[in-house]
């Protein structure tokens, strides 16, 4: 125990409280910084010599305080949960968004969608049934042609809308790819910097915060998770594929068709680059992949089914009748050029319905008098019973109208399930966020209290120095000077 050891202790105390005050300052400064984890100066008492050596002088009192380490306060378990839940929320958000856009494409229930147009066609046929043989204008027949053309246009527009949505989503995957690769590189660089700083004994808290923030963003983007590595580094893994290992980053690449048609066989997917291993991504990218490979094509397919049903239903009924000139009715719809064949001998037209899609649905009949309103024939009559039959198709139990309604109801249910699923997931996510914030967030009241504590401790340590100084003054200046 030396004469000045008390001064050293007090000095250490001053330094430690000063450091703690600095950390408090840093916390207060970053109270609103997203992703900042609050820090704490780890105060530790320095003990006396536990095993006194020979000739050692020890008064068995400790050597004061040490504030070497400043730590980040965060819960690794909660961070992992935030990654998982963030990915889940992102995927559900994309799913909800996709379905909402599909709903917009169909615009039901309303007066502008396919159902309204289809109903108008049936109604027009009802009018033809009343006046199949209007001698002057053929008004009712013309109305059938016009409403049918409008129905065809609507079916095609809806299909085009879905197709455009698909292409937009596919394009956005490229943006995701670039964003993810940039983040992966940044994480690897930060990892390297953290490793060097750790080895040099420098503070890495801010670097680690920044890196963990990036990892969380990657979790949202592609469903990445992280595991701790050496020297404060982290490894980033997506469904078993390691994308960042220490300072090494492996990029991702999007493959697959750029058009909905070519993507049916060449599905959009992510692979590692270099490496070429398929990666089952989650998060936003996973949601988009699901939209591209399942959701949008599924509704496109159902719409194609409806178009095919419209063609089959009207063709079947129309071919059963005779037109105004008394000739046998021809198919009303085909799928564009090359989907119908004409028998060279009988002149009968056969339509290959399997080639009819929503995008290619085409009205073959262009002349009003070619509409087959009569069941009596051959030979011209003013019979309208076939028109009645066609108008009555709207009540068919498995007709085009009812299968279209089924499509819309399925869509409605799926979209409403997605919306409520997203709402639930958001609650979970906000709870996890709240828990993280509760651990890592800065509380100003707490910082103020700490500040007071450290301030008082600093004053006290200063006072200790004064006291020791006075003691030494007595010892050095006054001792042995009795009588002088």
């Amino acid at each position, binding site marked *: 125990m030396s004469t000045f050891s008390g001064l050293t202790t007090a000095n250490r105390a001053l330094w430690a409280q000063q450091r703690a005050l600095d950390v408090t300052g840093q916390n207060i400064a970053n109270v609103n910084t997203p992703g900042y984890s609050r820090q704490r100066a780890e105060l530790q008492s320095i003990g006396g010599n536990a095993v006194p050596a020979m000739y050692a002088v020890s008064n068995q009192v400790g050597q004061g305080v040490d504030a070497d380490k400043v730590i980040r306060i965060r819960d690794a378990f909660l961070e992992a949960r935030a990654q998982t839940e963030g990915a889940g929320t992102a995927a559900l958000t994309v799913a909800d968004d996709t379905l909402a856009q599909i709903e917009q494409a169909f615009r039901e229930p309303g007066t502008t969608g396919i159902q309204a147009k289809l109903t108008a066609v049936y109604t027009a046929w009802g009018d033809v049934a*009343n006046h199949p043989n209007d001698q002057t204008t053929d008004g009712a027949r013309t109305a059938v042609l016009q409403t049918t053309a409008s129905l065809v246009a609507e079916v095609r527009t809806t299909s085009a809308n879905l197709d455009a949505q698909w292409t937009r989503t596919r394009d956005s995957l490229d943006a995701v790819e670039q964003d993810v690769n940039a983040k992966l590189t940044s994480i690897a660089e930060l990892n390297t910097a953290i490793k060097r700083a750790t080895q040099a004994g420098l503070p890495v808290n801010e670097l680690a915060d920044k890196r963990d923030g990036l990892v969380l963003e990657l979790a949202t983007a592609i469903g990445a998770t992280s595991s701790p590595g050496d020297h404060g580094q982290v490894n980033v893994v997506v469904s078993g594929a390691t994308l960042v290992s220490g300072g090494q980053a492996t990029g991702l690449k999007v493959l697959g068709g750029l058009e909905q048609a070519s993507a049916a066989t060449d599905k959009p997917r992510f692979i590692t680059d270099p490496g070429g291993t398929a990666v089952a991504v989650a998060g936003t990218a996973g949601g988009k992949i699901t939209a591209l490979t399942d959701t949008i094509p599924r509704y496109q397919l159902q719409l194609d089914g409806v178009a095919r049903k419209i063609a089959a239903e009207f063709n079947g009924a129309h071919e059963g009748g005779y037109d105004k000139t008394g000739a046998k009715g021809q198919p009303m719809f085909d799928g564009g050029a090359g989907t119908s064949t004409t028998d060279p001998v009988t002149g009968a037209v056969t339509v290959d319905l399997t080639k009819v899609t929503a995008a290619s649905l085409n009205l073959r009949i262009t002349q009003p008098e070619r509409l087959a309103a009569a069941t009596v024939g051959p030979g011209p*009559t*003013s*019979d309208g019973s076939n028109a009645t039959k066609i108008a009555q198709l709207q009540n068919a139990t498995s007709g085009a109208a009812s299968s279209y309604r089924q499509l819309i109801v399925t869509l409605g249910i799926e979209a409403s399930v997605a919306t409520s699923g997203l709402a639930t997931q958001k609650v979970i996510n*906000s709870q996890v966020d*709240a828990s993280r914030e*509760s651990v890592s967030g800065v509380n*100003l009241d707490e910082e103020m209290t700490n500040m007071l504590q450290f301030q008082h401790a600093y004053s006290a340590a200063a006072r200790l120095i004064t006291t020791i100084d006075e003691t030494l003054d007595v010892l050095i200046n006054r001792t042995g000077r009795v009588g002088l």
Partner: protein
Amino acid sequence: MRITQRAIATTSLQGLNRNLEAIGKLQEQLTSGKTINKPSDDPTGTNAAMQTRQELAGATQYARNISDGLGALNTTDSTLQNMIAQVHTVRDRTLTGMNTGGMSEAARAAVAAEVSGLRESLLGLANTVVQGHPIFGGVTSGTRAYDPATGGYVGFRPPVGPLENTVMVNRQVSESDSIRVDITGQEAFGVTSAAGVVPATRDLFAIVGDIAAHVVSDPDLLDADLAALDEALNGMLKAATDIGTRTTRMETAKQVNTDLQLTLTSRSADIENVDLAKTIMNLNMQQTGYEAALSATAKAIQPSLLDFLR
């Protein structure tokens, strides 16, 4: 749980957002007047709404069919009544012509001329046209039911088989019911049989033509003509009754259709339209909640220990 300023701010913001979202939803319903703006708002409601819309469109079409059918039936009925009155006149003149004892040649010629004139008039009525279509012509594509020169039937004849095989002109009056709105000339006025067919039959116009001829040439044959005329008249009365019955059916269908349209309209409104009172009430409640949340947030975020430290 440790609470931080940022946590309070985030939670408050989330709560405020939720409140505002609810207000936005109610606002959307109020401004559009619809509770269902997209299928996911209410999938079952969407199904019902779409079905009701379609049924309503169907019912409107049936209403058009009915009024069109009623028009055709009424025209047919009044034409038949006119013709029946004229046939009665023909019958009177025939009786006059049968009075062989007290009539001069000139008087007979006058009767013959009048009956011929009546025949022309009857043929004219039998060729009555509605919107370019002869009402007694069946489903003919022509504009006449009877040839005005010969008086022969030129309307639609069933390709094969007896009169019952006639192609009827129907109007669909409901999903399951259709009512015939025409009667062919052959059904109303009888059939003139082809040469050599036994027993030989004559239609109204042939009979009246024969009467005009026989009054002058061979009054003795008028007895048989009168019997045939009475038979034809009976046929016409039967046809008129038939038309009358169908008109009644059509009127009933009209009533049913009107009721159906009302029901469907109100059902559609029930499903799709906003309950104004309820929605406005909800909006007000939501607004109050929102304001409360705002002021609570303002109070909760403000103070910290800083305000109390010197």
